[in-house]
């Protein structure tokens, strides 16, 4: 006879229900698992058997056949251990089917009967609560990430025994109370740590407020990495939905760790020049999110952008343009969210001294010209701000540091509120404005218009650059709380035009 049991799997970021049928009949002892990848069979059999035995539960002596449906979905099968163990228990101890029907069971068993935490627990719990009417039992180690979703339908088990107690006797196992790990505000990196480079700090406010992708140009050691990694300190705090999404991604990538709670600060993902396409997009037989998705709702910092292979930079087009990553597989398409703010960093030229002291720059004019052009192309289309940073003289570093994150954040929040009113929806920012929106929201008076036209001619802006400057000007106006885009905002935007390609 067959006992049916339910578990949960996750493909890409989409959880799905796994229907398990466990059949026990007389015959030579054997354990067959259908619907799962090869090596799982042998491993599962052993884990489940030993775990049950170590818990002093009896193990049947017959032929066990397990079918896991849907068969064509790749399953990360280890998390099904718990469900199988419970099904076998049900056979041996006559647990009625209707008890098994109530639960979705997730967890990998170790030999001593402990249940190990799994990936994507947060997504699975959410799916289960919304799409099914079942209760879910997950490893106690995942209690942290599901803290905010606690519900009478969510149960935890640290060991097989606890799980069985819960299912059979209804005894709740209380995991150790997890505190959500909010980052202490005082510890967070602050823009007060950066001395000088005031223009760059203003640019960071613009980037944070209007979600403009940015290119930081400066010699090594002038503070580009510092500027990028402090962006979360001036961006609006994450909303519940954003926290949920980001935690789900980190959970799916297995980067949450034991007992960790929700991610409440925007992630900063640093990508170095020896990154690969796969590292950025993610992938694998069971697709796992890559760096671009880990930066969802946060910052993707690409250092030494000129050294990155073109095909990698190209992969970033989709996240920058649409905020997603699509992976194509044989039967299915996987979509990962990747709504990130991209900050690229580069030296201004080969020797790095062009901005600090052009007299000392040892590059030939040909080298200067071609160095930053390595970035040109589809990626630069989407970079709104080109910010120059310079090495500060020693006196600067002993004096006042300039704006702090607190001051900057206030202005950014104001600008964000204005944008929310303007667009009427949450999550839409100036950087995403279409040309017709630019024309309606960034109307210039005649004088300012003449000024801008003059600049367009003098610097030879392309049409793309024309709209780009206006978007930045709009954010500058929002930061000042001004309704119209004025002369100063246009001039400010122009100071962030590119030093390479067409501006």
């Amino acid at each position, binding site marked *: 006879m067959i006992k049916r049991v339910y578990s949960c799997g996750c493909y890409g970021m989409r959880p799905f229900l796994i229907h398990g049928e466990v059949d026990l009949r007389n015959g030579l002892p054997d354990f067959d698992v259908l619907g799962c990848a090869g090596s799982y069979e042998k491993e599962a059999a052993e884990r489940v058997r030993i775990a049950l035995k170590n818990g002093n539960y009896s193990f049947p002596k017959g032929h066990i056949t397990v079918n896991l449906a849907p068969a064509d979905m790749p399953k990360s099968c280890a998390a099904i251990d718990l469900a199988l163990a419970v099904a076998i228990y049900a056979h041996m101890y006559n647990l009625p089917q209707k008890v098994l029907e109530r639960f979705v069971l997730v967890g990998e068993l170790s030999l001593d009967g402990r249940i190990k935490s799994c990936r994507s627990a947060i997504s699975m719990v959410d799916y289960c609560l919304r799409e099914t009417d079942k209760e879910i039992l997950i490893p106690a180690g995942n209690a942290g990430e599901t803290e905010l979703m606690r519900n009478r339908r969510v149960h935890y088990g640290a060991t097989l025994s606890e799980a069985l107690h819960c299912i059979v006797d209804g005894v709740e196992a209380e995991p150790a109370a997890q505190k959500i790990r909010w980052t202490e505000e005082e510890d967070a990196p602050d823009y007060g740590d950066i001395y*000088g480079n005031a223009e760059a700090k203003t640019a960071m406010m613009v980037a944070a407020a209007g979600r403009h992708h940015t290119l930081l140009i400066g010699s090594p050691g002038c503070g580009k990495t510092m500027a990028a990694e402090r962006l979360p300190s001036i961006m609006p705090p994450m909303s519940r939905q954003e926290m949920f999404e980001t935690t789900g991604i980190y959970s799916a990538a297995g980067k949450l760790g034991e007992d960790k709670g929700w991610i409440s600060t925007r992630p900063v993902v640093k990508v170095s020049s020896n990154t690969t396409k796969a590292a950025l997009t993610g992938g694998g037989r069971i697709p796992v999110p890559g760096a671009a998705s880990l930066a969802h709702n946060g910052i993707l910092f690409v250092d030494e952008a000129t050294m990155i292979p073109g095909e990698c930079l190209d992969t970033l087009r989709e996240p920058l343009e649409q905020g997603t990553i699509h992976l194509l597989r044989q039967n299915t398409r996987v979509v990962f969210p990747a709504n990130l703010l991209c900050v690229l960093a580069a030296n201004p030229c080969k020797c790095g001294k*062009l*901005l600090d002291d*052009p007299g000392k720059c040892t590059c030939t*004019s040909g080298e200067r010209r071609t160095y930053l052009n390595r970035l040109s192309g589809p990626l630069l289309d989407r970079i709104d701000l080109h910010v120059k940073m*310079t090495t500060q003289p020693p006196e600067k570093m002993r004096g006042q540091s300039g704006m702090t994150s607190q001051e900057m954040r206030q202005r950014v929040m104001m600008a964000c509120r204005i944008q929310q009113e303007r667009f009427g929806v949450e999550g839409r920012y100036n950087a995403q404005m279409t040309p017709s929106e630019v024309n309606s929201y960034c109307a210039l008076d005649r004088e300012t218009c003449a*000024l801008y036209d003059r600049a367009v001619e003098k610097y030879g802006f392309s049409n793309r650059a024309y709209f780009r400057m206006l978007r930045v000007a709009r954010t500058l106006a929002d930061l000042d709380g001004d309704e119209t885009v004025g002369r*100063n905002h246009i001039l*400010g935007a122009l*100071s962030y035009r590119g030093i390479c390609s067409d501006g």
Partner: protein
Amino acid sequence: MDRKIYDVIYTLMIPEIGPAGIGKLLRMFGSFENIRALTADQIGRLKFLSHKAKEAMTEGAVTEYTDKSMEIIRRENVGICLMGDSDYPQSLMDIQNPPPALFYRGKMLAKERRVSVIGTRACSHYGMAVAEELGRKCGTHGLTTVSGFASGVDGLIHRSTCENGGRTVAVLAGNIDKPYPVENRNLINPILKAEGCLLTEVPPGKPIFRSDFILRNRLIAGLGTVLVVVEAGTKSGCFSTVDYMNDIGRDTYAVPGNITGSKSIGTNKMIQQGAHVYTSYEDFMLDSGLGVFARRHSGYTAQGIELSNLDKRLLAEIKSTPCTVEQLSDTLSLDPGTVAQSLTFLTLFGEVTEVTPGWFVGKTG
């Protein structure tokens, strides 16, 4: 006429031959027509031609190059001036082995006062400022500048002369259809618009060689009444131009510079070796005998733009030493954002120039 040009280009297209070699061929055979008609036998006996040259001549490669060159001339309407034509600059006749042909674009040289200005490619801010001022003043006062179209000082001279309504002559080291260096190609239109001229002794289509640079310098020397060297390092190519000037008995002025800076070591040495000292534009004009100013031209700027008080303060502060937004905002105790906006405004109207990204320089004097 076409025939004559064809013959001259033919000789110029012979590989690995320089002005001395051309002069020798001319003296031996009398005319370019005769050179083209040389038999393989005669060519073989010329010891001063390289193997490659002889091969190219006998196998018809030179004819091919010449045909292609003529095609470019026709297609792009390149101007040609042969030695002996009425518009061939007489001042060039003083140099050793003057070019038999000049290929040009724009308005050909006339009888005018010209000053040759050269300098290093990697100039310092000081050099940039001096070049900018000199170009501007020459432009405003109707004095034609001659320079080498190179990066650095040459490019700045050409640019500031044109932008101030003046005429400038760019002597290219390579051919006229693909002017070298590439990054100065955006100067071509301004130069031509301001009634200037691009010229070279290299026929269209001929690739550029290392030796061409020094050879071009003798043209710069030949075309200017006087030479000014703005900034030069120890081993600068500018020294060759000075030598050429000395050969034809014309004066050189060198701009003195910082003895600690590497960029002025050459110019300081020139002064030590007898070049005149350039201390200011006015003194230079008086001393060199270039004399009274021909015409005043109000120039490109000053279009009645309204400068705010802030703009004026900035202008007063920015001088010939380039500075950044940060430096200005510190000195004037102003918010950097406001300074940046003002600088951008001033740059748009030419009151201030962004010489390299982030560094701004004003007008001196």
